[in-house]
């Protein structure tokens, strides 16, 4: 394979790490930073997972756990939501996978600003620490719901109205600073550090998804920053941006004239793109996983790119569908219902194209592939229930009920997490040089996939019934039959099983790091650039002495004229082994085809 001659290469300063500290702690290597981001994000994610388990205990078995009082319940709800959406999913997809994959997939030695990249992680860690500190201040963390709607977020009468909400807002502001540092890095790297021959349309869809998601983040997070700053001022110096005249707990407050709905507009102007900040990288990554393990090019690559771009654009003009019953000008309903349902079209096309990628493929049912198929199922389910809520009149009965909870967990919780696991099982051999254990991986998949469906399918029906979300307890009501409590208990049991099953995954990772089967450099037979590094795991600088040169797109799988069933992106036309014309039509792919992309069976864990 050809590489650029050393003389052609731009001069680059690579800060070669010399000690343990510079190599693993104050590292400027995008791969180390990616792992730091991922470990931190997964750690807070586990905290949030435990919180959700506690919430489910209260809902499934009310009156059994004395430490879960109404304040604690609302605090669990709030922290669970905020951590999962921002500190886990956003950080893991962009800070983790974005950091790891972008330079490797586009053939760069590192991010363009390695120092800034390092800083981004440490500032993120600071945001996490500030957030976690709110568990330990008097009054505890805020219990205002993850949307932090004023006035209640900053008033007595809401748990954590003092230190809790203050630390939450500060932590968010810090997170946004961290994200902006990282985000500028990702977009600039994608635009300016691609290797020779890597045109934009030759980039793998993972990079496209992460790239567009980062742009969304850069443009959307300012809205959260603006609302956080203004709410901080309302809270600390007594301005009235969002605070109208209020009698709170029997006392007249000094506020007047502010508009709580203004906050909601700002929040959702951030909040809706945030959904796609999580979803677009997932879309991209799952496309690559499906394509590699089906040994087939992604179907309709251009459509997939356009859909990512169009969804990204549309995501800025649908925000008020979160506010149909907020009391905003009701005429907005027409506009936002229409734009919201329009966004279903490109999204549906993506689903079709994933399925069509499998169609006429040569499907290897590896663990990663199972998770990817699981994603298609859960995402289809979650996407379709979105059509209920996006249609403004259907939102009237369903909004603020468990239907909403089930919908967004399906589409924004379960689906991206399916992709996260698919991605981890897919790239783990490259990241560590070891295979994850297949049997454990599949067990993990089955419990997670079936368990989450057992949680969320019935939950939609609680919503139809009209059970409101964010209720500590339903108490006795006329319209909710007693059997709903049994349903809640069964949901709780499923949730606990799924929660505990994640230990299988953690065990699998630890076990495989220690004694996992050694992985060759390209075990799945993938064509994209990250699998073509000279070393596995890739060393600092990624590419050895010379950068790779790219000659083709990332999806040359099962090309009829080629002997091998994949052609790496950096393989020039002359190097490709071609079959004779007479053989083209036959089904034979040559001897070397059959083992490519198989997973090691592995011994007993």
């Amino acid at each position, binding site marked *: 394979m050809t590489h650029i001659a050393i003389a052609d290469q*731009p001069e*680059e300063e690579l800060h070669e790490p010399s000690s343990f500290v510079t190599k693993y702690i104050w590292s400027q290597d995008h791969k180390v930073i990616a792992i730091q981001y991922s470990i931190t994000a997964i750690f807070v994610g586990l905290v949030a997972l435990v919180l959700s388990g506690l919430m489910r205990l209260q809902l499934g078995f009310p009156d059994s756990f004395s430490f879960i009082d109404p304040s604690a319940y609302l605090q669990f709800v709030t922290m669970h939501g905020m951590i999962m959406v921002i500190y886990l999913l956003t950080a893991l997809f962009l800070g983790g996978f974005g950091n790891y994959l972008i330079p490797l997939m586009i053939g*760069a030695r590192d991010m*363009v*600003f390695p120092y800034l990249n390092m800083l981004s992680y440490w500032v993120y860690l600071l945001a996490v620490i500030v957030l976690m500190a709110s568990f330990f201040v008097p009054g505890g963390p805020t219990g205002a719901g993850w949307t932090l709607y004023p006035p209640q977020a900053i008033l007595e009468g809401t748990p954590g109205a003092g230190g809790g909400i203050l630390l939450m807002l500060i932590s968010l502001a810090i997170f946004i600073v961290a994200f*902006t540092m990282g*985000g*500028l*890095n990702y*977009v*600039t790297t994608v*635009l*300016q*550090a*691609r*290797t*020779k*021959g890597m*045109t*934009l*349309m*030759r980039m793998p869809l993972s990079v496209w998804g992460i790239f567009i998601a980062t742009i969304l983040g*850069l*443009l959307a997070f*300012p*809205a959260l*920053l*603006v609302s956080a*700053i*203004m709410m901080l*001022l309302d809270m600390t*110096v*007594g*301005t*009235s*941006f969002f605070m109208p005249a209020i009698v709170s707990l029997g006392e007249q407050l*000094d506020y*007047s*004239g*502010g*508009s709580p709905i*203004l906050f909601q507009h*700002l929040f959702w*102007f951030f909040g809706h793109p945030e959904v796609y900040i999580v979803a677009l990288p997932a879309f991209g990554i799952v496309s690559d996983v499906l394509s590699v393990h089906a040994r087939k*090019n992604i179907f309709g*690559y*251009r459509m997939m*790119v*356009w859909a990512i*771009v169009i969804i990204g654009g549309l995501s800025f003009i649908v925000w008020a569908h979160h506010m149909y019953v907020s009391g905003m000008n009701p005429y907005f309903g027409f506009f936002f219902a229409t734009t919201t349902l329009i966004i279903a079209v490109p999204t549906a096309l993506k689903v079709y194209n994933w399925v069509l990628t499998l169609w006429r493929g040569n499907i290897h049912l590896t663990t990663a592939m199972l998770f990817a198929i699981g994603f298609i199922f859960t995402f289809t389910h979650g996407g379709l229930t979105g059509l209920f809520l996006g249609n403004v009149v259907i939102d009237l009965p369903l909004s603020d009920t468990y239907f909403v909870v089930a919908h967004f967990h399906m589409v924004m919780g379960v689906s991206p997490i399916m992709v996260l696991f698919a991605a981890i099982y897919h790239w783990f051999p490259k990241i560590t040089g070891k295979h994850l254990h297949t049997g454990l991986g599949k067990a993990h998949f089955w419990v997670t996939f079936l368990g989450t469906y057992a949680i969320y399918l019935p939950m939609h029906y609680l919503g139809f019934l009209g059970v409101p979300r964010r209720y500590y307890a339903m108490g006795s009501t006329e319209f909710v039959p007693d059997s709903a409590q049994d349903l809640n208990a069964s949901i709780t049991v499923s949730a606990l099983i799924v929660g505990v099953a994640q230990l299988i995954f953690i065990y699998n990772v630890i076990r495989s790091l220690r004694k996992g089967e050694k992985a060759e450099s390209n075990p799945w037979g993938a064509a994209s650039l990250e699998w073509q590094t000279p070393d596995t795991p890739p060393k600092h600088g990624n590419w050895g002495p010379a950068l790779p*040169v790219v*000659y*083709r*797109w990332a*999806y*040359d799988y099962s090309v009829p004229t080629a002997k091998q069933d994949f052609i790496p992106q950096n393989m020039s*036309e002359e190097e490709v082994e071609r079959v004779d014309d007479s053989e083209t039509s036959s089904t034979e792919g040559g001897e070397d085809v059959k083992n490519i992309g198989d997973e090691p069976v592995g011994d007993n864990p």
Partner: protein
Amino acid sequence: MKIFRTLSEKPWIPHPAGSEFLAKNYQKEIFIGRTALRFFISVVSVIFFLFTITFLTRSQFPDFQALAGEPWQPLSDASHLWLNTGALLISSIALHWAHVSARKNQLNGAIASVMIGAFFALLFLLGQILVWKQLIELGYYVASNPANSYFYLYTSVHGLHLLGGLFALAYVTLQLMKKNSLVTFSSSVRLCAVYWHFLLILWLFLFALLTSSTDTINIIAQLCGF
């Protein structure tokens, strides 16, 4: 449109031999800095755009009292703010000079211009703080009216961005001392200058908005559909 042409490429079709590597300059520092700065300026613009949206919305509530318009209102006489604007303008021009001098290989000129630029930027910040002091003395506190809140909010966020720029400028100058490379300095200080121009334009916009009378603000708000 180039973007549409790019997006409609069919990547599975091989490029004609040799054509594919011609189009792009690979990994040049200068493009990297420029791209990053463009994105950063977009981010800051979005922040101020959103502040302004909330400003216009909030201005339509009855308790909003603009700071200018009637003669007794404090910003009807904006001479102090004009002086500050002048300082920022000089600072902006000086940084441009710094870039030009560096490109012409005039080390002393470049350093002198940077110093002038930094000095006037600090002067601007000091001037803004003096305006705050004046307002406070007149009894226009941050929470007494939303218009006041916005004045303090806008000026402080804008000031913080300028302060951040000053740190970047200090770093760039230190790099010049260390490495003595006028070429790198020229391109870095150019980025600073662009950022300064942006902050100047932003300030002019904020200046106009904050010193508008209630009527003007109402007209703008109505034009924007609030």
